[in-house]
């Protein structure tokens, strides 16, 4: 059954690692919905969080091929509902801030006027979508989204660890 799954990959913080991992997606023709990379508290180690819509068999094949990469230490797979998801969205608006304050308040977004009108939202990606949708009534000049990053919930279910 196809569903959204999140992969958490601990890997060496070395050039080429992300390339090798994303090559696996290309090889199997998986479409990555989102990928984020960042350092962790462990020196020399980075964590890659990938959101992907894939069936069980595809997920298994992906995890195997990724685990085979020598610079990859661990691959954990979790269904979306077992994770806490967050995404950062930055928006630059055209014109004045009139009318924007109320929308931002509704979504817990931060409105800044500093030589331009900026909106910053951090939260559930679906809320970001909704926020952008409402802002579309006004003029959006530019927009950047980080893609989701996530953590497995303390009581998350169906967590698969390809650690060996």
């Amino acid at each position, binding site marked *: 059954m196809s569903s959204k799954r999140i992969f958490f990959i601990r890997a060496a913080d070395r050039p080429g690692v992300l390339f090798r991992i994303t*090559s696996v997606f290309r090889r199997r023709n998986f479409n990555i919905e989102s990928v984020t990379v960042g350092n962790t508290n462990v020196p020399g180690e980075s964590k890659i969080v990938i959101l992907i819509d894939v069936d069980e068999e595809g997920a298994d094949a992906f995890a195997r091929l990724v*685990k085979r990469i*020598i610079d990859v230490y661990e691959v954990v797979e979790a269904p979306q509902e077992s994770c806490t998801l967050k995404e950062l969205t930055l928006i630059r608006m055209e014109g004045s801030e009139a009318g924007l304050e109320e929308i931002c308040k509704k979504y817990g977004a931060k409105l800044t006027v500093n030589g331009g009108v900026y909106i910053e939202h951090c939260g559930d990606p679906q809320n970001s979508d909704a926020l952008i949708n409402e802002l579309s009534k006004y003029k959006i000049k530019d927009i950047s989204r980080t893609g989701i990053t996530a953590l497995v919930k303390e009581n998350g279910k169906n967590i698969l660890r390809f650690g*060996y």
Partner: protein
Amino acid sequence: MHTSNMQTDSYMSGARAIVRALENEGVDVIFGIPGGATLPLYDELKDGKIRHILARHEQSASHMADGYARASGRVGVCSATSGPGATNLLTGVATAYMDSSPIVAITGQVAKPFIGKDAFQEIDTVGVYMPVVKYAIQPLTPKEIPESIKMAFFISSTGRQGPVLVDVPKDVQTGSDEMDFSSNVKLKGYETSFKPDPSRAREAAKLILQAQRPIILVGGGAIKANAGSMVVELAEILMAPIASTLMGKGAVPETHFLSVGPIGMHGTYHANRLITESDLVIGIGARFSDRTTMDTGEFEREKMIIGLDIDPTEAKKNLKNELAVTGDVKESLAMILQFVKSMMPYSENSPWIRRVKELKDQFDGKVFGEKAVSPLIIKEVRGQLADHDIVTTEVGQTQAWAELFYKALKPRTFITSGGLGTMGFGFPAAIGAKVAKFGSNVVDLAGDGSFQMTSNSLATSVKEGIPVIVIIFNNSTLGMIAQWQRMVYGNRIVASWLGESPDFSYLAKAYGAEGVKVNGAEDFGRAFKEALSNEITTVIDVPIPPEENVFPFVPSGKSLREMIV
């Protein structure tokens, strides 16, 4: 007195450090072709102890290194320049990757300031190689070279073996620094030896003892683990037949009374039947590839599978009913043997072993198809070669004939491109194998199509004094393609007819090798005997009827029970 300008023994160029590091690894030979971006390296080879064997095309160089590795078990080394050198070398590296063969490929790269500028002979070698190497390293300072080379050999030769690329920019070769060759490679997250889980081994032993009709399937991993004698021990306790994959040929002597030969698309009739009728498959260093299992659902229907493999990512990869025992194959086997031995051995007269004998007596060595000449040639080759002599194969019908009729008696004596199926592999691989095992005869079983892909290696073989024998099963066609066109594509022959050109005996002579054309099997026997007694590279051209088909044959998508004979 200042010492900063004093040149110590450990102060040297990156190029010299490459040679020194290779010598430290015990490398005695490199197969390659020099180019602009490897000139500094080659300049250092002039004074070093390592023999360089000059190929005529980089693809041949990488196959030679691969053949060397497969025949000896040691890491094979090949080298090419940047750009086209690296892309030519790639096919052989990918071939090694698919068959888990340990080679180290050293490529030159344009100097760092030119990287990414579309410089002359520049390609992103690391980017191109990534999907077909176990690891790729690009040292960016001379100082990184000793560790890079050490790491390359370590990764290539440990765990599930495979090729490693070291891509060295020209200025990293020419630049000098203090070099430290003493560091130990430590790679986080890279485990080389998995201790098999005893509870898994016990579970496997239980399955084995419950089985009524067990069959052993040995793969290339059994050869790499040197597990042959343990496999035989297990088989004799269980009185279970031993089948193999294409890569597993030679893991146990194929003349053993329990050996039934390879299964798969071109497996023997009795092996394919027996594995279909079995209720337990004990896979030993076999990855259950599509060519081996054919239709997987049918393959594992009504049976259990045990899979012993060193690579944890192989566990349950292709089969659902698999109990995977991950770890060094020999250690896993030892554990399982211990459990099995403590229980009752099988009766020597079980219905299963009677069935094995019945099928084997009927079909061992049987040639399906009346006109087939190739099996006779292969049997003649086997008859004249010693146990330790080596055959390599090209890819296509000849490979399938060799799989069926050449009985490998020792590990590392049957060398073939199983995973990638690379035409042109056999001849250069034979040269590499001959370098590794100079005391053995090495024979390439070739088709005329495959041979033409790397026949440039004739020059290497002659000029470097590495005599091998090439037997060309010459049907003037791309034989396997023609067979499929006849059998699967309604006899519509397209682009598979090569014609009667060139004359291979003349081609051989043009290179300074011996070239012989024979008529039929008997004539071949004499020519082959003579070739074996001469210390000269010999090409024997054997005419084969173009309409010859290899049977048994399981078309893709079908199951092993649906053999065409």
